[in-house]
Each structure stands twice: as structure tokens, then as C-alpha cells.
């Protein structure tokens, strides 16, 4: 018997992983949650049939969304993480001693409990005493907060499902408002390759550009995401992602990483021509 998980990256492109076992399947109030065990990528978490993470390549995403802003901002104390119920981002953040509090806002409690059970490696730092988990709608949570965070990390699902609200101008606006005067917001910005994804990426980039004085996009290669090519948005009130990057200071922390390096930090902001053009179109 052959058992395969397939995800449509476009109606005409399918990405498939062979499955050993279907470990978990549950329809929560918000989405369909599944966890598979696969020979090539280890355990795989999918929401509404879209791959969120695999044990094999999650380090790329979690390191790039975390270390890039952490190496720029000189003194991050209070962090807000949106989505990220799997715990991967928190795991990276928890390595920084300077951080005093991490507020995690996840709308779906079921994602967290499933990950705690089946992806303990990922969820291992959710019990860190600096971490406060709120099961709430992020828009509702953030609009009550003003100048309270140094860093906001938006680790949401695609802009076409329950996370649609996290790609809107009102969302970026309330994040801006929740950040201190030198705060940084980093978000997963989707893939620029397939047309449907690229248009969504342009729309959200345009909205971030109109909200933050500094807004740059950086990239990483993530095999199980659409086209294996992923973008992050770096939006900031004061610090420039390259000019204010303090490589010596970060190196002194002696954090061992598998993807992020101080050389890659700058390199990730250098984008291919077609992408530069797409971004300029909306800037």
C-alpha cells in the first residue's frame, strides 16, 4: 500500500510526501489539524491541508524569523508572537537571556495541545516561565496594547484561511501601535513564485510599507513550502536590518544555528531581479 499526503501549491502543481502513519486528525473550531509521520521529513503538521512545519526543515523558518530581528534590535525585552502554536519560534526566542517576556497569541488551543503531544521537540519551550500563552484572536488582543513590545513576530498561516486578518492594513497598524518607538515587526510574507501567492505577497507588502517607515523583505529556502522559496517581512520604526545589524554582539552570544549565519543575515536581503521589481511596483 502506498500512502501519500499531497498539497496543491497551485491548482496545477502538487507537492507530495510519502506517509508512514497518520498520527493525528482533528477538526477544531477554526481548521482541520493533521499530523503525519513521513520517512523523508519526519513528523509533519498540516492545517487545512497546508504544510505548516516538518521536523526536517522547520529550523530554517524558525531561525530566520527569529535571529534576523534579534541581531538588529539592541535590547529586546518584550516579545509578542502571533500564531506559532507549534512552539518553534518560541523555542528559538527562549535561547536569548535578554528577553524577559514572550506573549504568544494563538487562536486555536487545539494546535498547541496537538503539538505538545506529537511534536514535543518543537513545543519544548512553551513551558518556559517567560512565556505567556493567550488563546485569543490576535486582532482583538493587540488592539488593546500600546507601546508595549520591542518585537512582534507574526507566524501565521496563509492569507487565504483563518489568518486572512493578519495580512491586513488594520492588523499592521495595530502592531505598529503595540510596538515601542524602536520596535520591529517580522512576519512570514509567503512565497513570491506562483502568481496567486505573489499577488498576496505584494498586497501585504504594500500595506506594511504604508504603515512602517522601514520595510524590507528577506528570503530563505524552505523545501516543503510552495516553490521551496519563502519570504519574510522586516518592518521597523527605527532600526535598519543591515545598517543597524550588530554582528559582533550577536556572535558573542555563541548561539549555535543550522541555517542562520551573520554572513547570511545581510545576504538574505539581496533579492532576485523579478522580486525586486514586484516589490518596487507596490512601494
Amino acid at each position, binding site marked *: 500500500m502506498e500512502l501519500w499526503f499531497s498539497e496543491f501549491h497551485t491548482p496545477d502543481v502538487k507537492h507530495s510526501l510519502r506517509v508512514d502513519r497518520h498520527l493525528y486528525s482533528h477538526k477544531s473550531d477554526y481548521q482541520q489539524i493533521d499530523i503525519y509521520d513521513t520517512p523523508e521529513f519526519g513528523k509533519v503538521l498540516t492545517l487545512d491541508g497546508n504544510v505548516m512545519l516538518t521536523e526536517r526543515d522547520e529550523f530554517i523558518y524558525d531561525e530566520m524569523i527569529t535571529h534576523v530581528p534579534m541581531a538588529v534590535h539592541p535590547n529586546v525585552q518584550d516579545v509578542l508572537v502571533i500564531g506559532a502554536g507549534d512552539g518553534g519560534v518560541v523555542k528559538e526566542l527562549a535561547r536569548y537571556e535578554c528577553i524577559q517576556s514572550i506573549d504568544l497569541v494563538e487562536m486555536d488551543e487545539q494546535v498547541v495541545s496537538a503539538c505538545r503531544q506529537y511534536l514535543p521537540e518543537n513545543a519544548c519551550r512553551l513551558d518556559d516561565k517567560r512565556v505567556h500563552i493567550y488563546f485569543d*484572536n490576535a*486582532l*482583538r488582543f*493587540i*488592539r*488593546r496594547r500600546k507601546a508595549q513590545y520591542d518585537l512582534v513576530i507574526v507566524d501565521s498561516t496563509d492569507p487565504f484561511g*483563518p489568518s*486572512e*486578518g493578519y495580512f*491586513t*492594513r*488594520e*492588523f499592521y*497598524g*495595530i502592531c505598529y*501601535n503595540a510596538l515601542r518607538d524602536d520596535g520591529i515587526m517580522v512576519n512570514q510574507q509567503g512565497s513570491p513564485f506562483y502568481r496567486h501567492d505573489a499577488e498576496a505577497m505584494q498586497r501585504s507588502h504594500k500595506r506594511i510599507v504604508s504603515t512602517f517607515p522601514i520595510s524590507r523583505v528577506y528570503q530563505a529556502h524552505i523545501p516543503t513550502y510552495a516553490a521551496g522559496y519563502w519570504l519574510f517581512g522586516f518592518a521597523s520604526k527605527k532600526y535598519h536590518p543591515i545598517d543597524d545589524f550588530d554582528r559582533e554582539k550577536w556572535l558573542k552570544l555563541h548561539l549555535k544555528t543550522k541555517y542562520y549565519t551573520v554572513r547570511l543575515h545581510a545576504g538574505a536581503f539581496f533579492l532576485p531581479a523579478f522580486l525586486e521589481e514586484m516589490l518596487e511596483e507596490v512601494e
Partner: protein
Amino acid sequence: MEKERISDQRRAPIYEALQTFRQMRVVPFDVPGHKRGRGNPELTAFLGEQCVSIDVNSMKPLDNLCHPISVIRQAEELAADAFGAAHAFLMVGGTTSSVQTMVLATCKRGDKIIMPRNVHRSVINALVLCGAIPVYVNPEVDRRLGISLGMKRDQVARAIRENPDAVAVLVNNPTYYGICSDLRTIVKMAHDAGMYCLADEAHGTHFYFGENMPVSAMEAGADMAAVSMHKSGGSLTQSSLLLTGPNIQEGHVRKIINLTQTTSGSYLLMSSLDISRRNLALRGKQVFRQVVAMAEYAREEINAVGGYYAFGRELVNGDSIFDFDPTKLSVHTRDIGLAGIEVYDLLRDEYDIQIEFGDIGNILAYLSIGDRYQELERLVSALAEIRRRYQTDSSGLMNQEYIDPEVVTSPQEAFYADKESVPLEDSVGKVCSEFVMCYPPGIPILAPGERITREILEYIQYAKAKGCSMTGPEDPDIEHINILTEEVG
């Protein structure tokens, strides 16, 4: 082919007949010419085969809207039962046609009809058609919100006393903003004076199904009610219901409807009424419980933002605001220094959020059967952002919404009289021969036959400057207006 009355609300006779009809694979040598979509592949690709295949003509198994005797009749009877009416008419010309039928069925040329001035344009259009004369009961205005309220009991009583020859009283149940007059008492006053009571329930479908709602027209004993099923009821745009009470003769109403209604009633619209009625009858209570909970939640959250006032049942005063529709989400914006229409535009242009309307002092977001909390969070957050980014001093904003009109001549006479076009500024003191209104909400600022005053002109110019979308006059830029050449009696 005549069929027995059915009483099971789980049935949907038009829908069932269309299902059967589809299975029969009848060969069409009749209209419509697209022949189940085959003749228009682009349209079929766009709307879907399911949809175009039931866009069919009246025929024996599907009944005929002009003279219903089988499945349409059964659907009407089921609707009547669901709404507690003596009879229900399926309407395919929008609630405009339901309103028109109410007026044409009760008023003749020269008859007086008592109504609040903040009626929908369709009511005054009906007066143009039949030549009845409006007797306006001027609604109270809430000074803070700048909105027209319901009719007070003593004002209606006075209008009835002063116009004993009037034939009907028309009531908005509720207004666009969700405000209800004391309908039971008004019905009683009208009936005691031998007048009909008609209700414009374009915004009141859910009163028939929700819990703790304001009283519905049929329950209050009104004679006719125009119900926009496509608003809170969930049916397709342009479908509507006309309800009648026991004192109204069904055949007479049918005759009036057939004066202006199409003879090719759309089965898309009729089946949508049938299916929506079934849904409301079976699940309406639960659906509207959710809608009310969402509206209450949104009110709390918007009021917590500060600056805005999302108003609700606290406004109820026992008379001009006898009751309030809790599903309505209206927000007063003047205190953040922005006109409602400006907030309306910002929501659409900056945040991709389309709300129902914005006027001078308020916005209205329409909540219904199809809403979810995640979108409400966007709306509330966008309002919070608009306040943060655009809040300004509110002292320059106009707050007067209602201007007492002087009716010089009947809408029909004014509409058909000799007229000329003059620049807006030169029209003060003249009698207007056309409508001027902001759309939405479509409540006339000026109606045919009313005197144009300086105050009204200033209001029109202010509304234009703030970006209200103005309609009515022949001149699309609303720089000229048609006035009566000679003042008529």
C-alpha cells in the same frame, strides 16, 4: 395541477419542483433562449451550470407567478404560515415592488396617506404613480446622533385627527438605523379611525424569527408589510415578500402586483425565497441569536476603542424610540472629528472593508446570517486604526440631519408638471420636481413637490463635499436641479 395546502416548514415546494424538473431532462423549445446555458457558454462558465439550468420559464410543473395555483402557491402559503400572515406574495422586483403594491393597493388618486418623512424613496415613487398625497409626521431627531427617530404616538394621533379622510398610515419597522415606533398602538389608532396600517419592513425580516426582537408588523396586526428577504433573510438580491393580514383581499393585491411585475418571474429568485424561508423557519431563532450576540460584542468592542459611539437598546425611550433592533450595528463617528461618510470611505479605500452606508454623523455595518467573528475583529481594529490615524477636531462638523419639508404639491403633480432646470444656487424658494438623496440610505432630502430652502441647499452641498453619493436629479453632477415652472395650487 392545483395542489393541496402543505404545512410542513421543512418542505420547499419550488425548490423540490425544480429538482424534479432537472431530473426529467425536458427538451427546451421555449424561452429563455440560452437553453440551460448551452447557448451562452461564457455566462455558464461565470455563473455555473447549476445556476443557469434552473433559469427557466413558467410552465405547468413549475407554476406561474402571475397566477399561482400549484408549487408557487404552496410556497406562498408556507411563507404566510412562517411569518404569521394571512397571505404572502413572492416578489421578484425587490422590496420596492412590495412597497409600491402596498401603496397602490390601498390608495387612489387624491387619497391621503400618513407617513414619516424618512421613508424610502420607493414609497414616494408609489405616490407619483398613484397620485396619493403624503401627510408627513415629522420624526423626532436625536440631537446627539443627528438621526431621525420613529413617529411619536401623539404625533400620529394628531395626524389622524387632522386628516380623518386619510386612508392609510405607513410605518418604518424599523428605520435603517434599527429604530421602531410603537407599532401595536399605531395599528390600533389607524384601525379605530378606519385606516389601513402598512409597514415598510425592508429591514425587519428577522423580527419574525429572532428572540426578544421588536414586534413584527403581522404580530402587531398591521394590514400589509413589505419584507426584504434578501437583506437579513439571506435570499438573493431583488427577491422580497409582501405579507398581508386578514382584512386584505388577496385577489385585489394580486391584480395590483400584476400591473407592474414581470410575467417572467425568475426561478432563481423564487427558489431563493423558498429555501430562505425554510431556513428561517427551521433555524431562524438560533441564527439571529448569533447575529445579536455578534452585534452586542461589536458594540462593546467599538465603544471600548473610545471616540466612537455604537448605540443600542439604551436609546429606547418608550415613544419615538419605542424599540431598537439589536442586530443593527450603527456607530456615531462625529466625536472623532470625521463624518460617517468619511469613515465609510476610509474603511473601503484603506482597509478593504465595505459597510452598508455612512451619512453625516454615523456609519452602519450590516450584520447577518453570513457573518463571522474574525471579520468583526477586522472591522473593530480598522475603526481603532482610523481613530489613531485620522482623529481630528469635531467642531466644524454639521450635525443636523432632518429638515422639515414644506410640501407644496403632490409628488405626482410635481413629477408631471412643466419644469425647468436651474443651477442649484438659484433654486431657493422654488418647488422641486425631482428627488435628491444620498444613496444609500435612499431617504429623500428633497422629494417632488417640496419647497427648496437655503437650509436644504446647504445640507446638499455639505453632503456632496463630504463625499456622499448623491442620486435623484437628472443632472448626474447635481449642479442643476429641476423646478416647477409655475407654482401649482
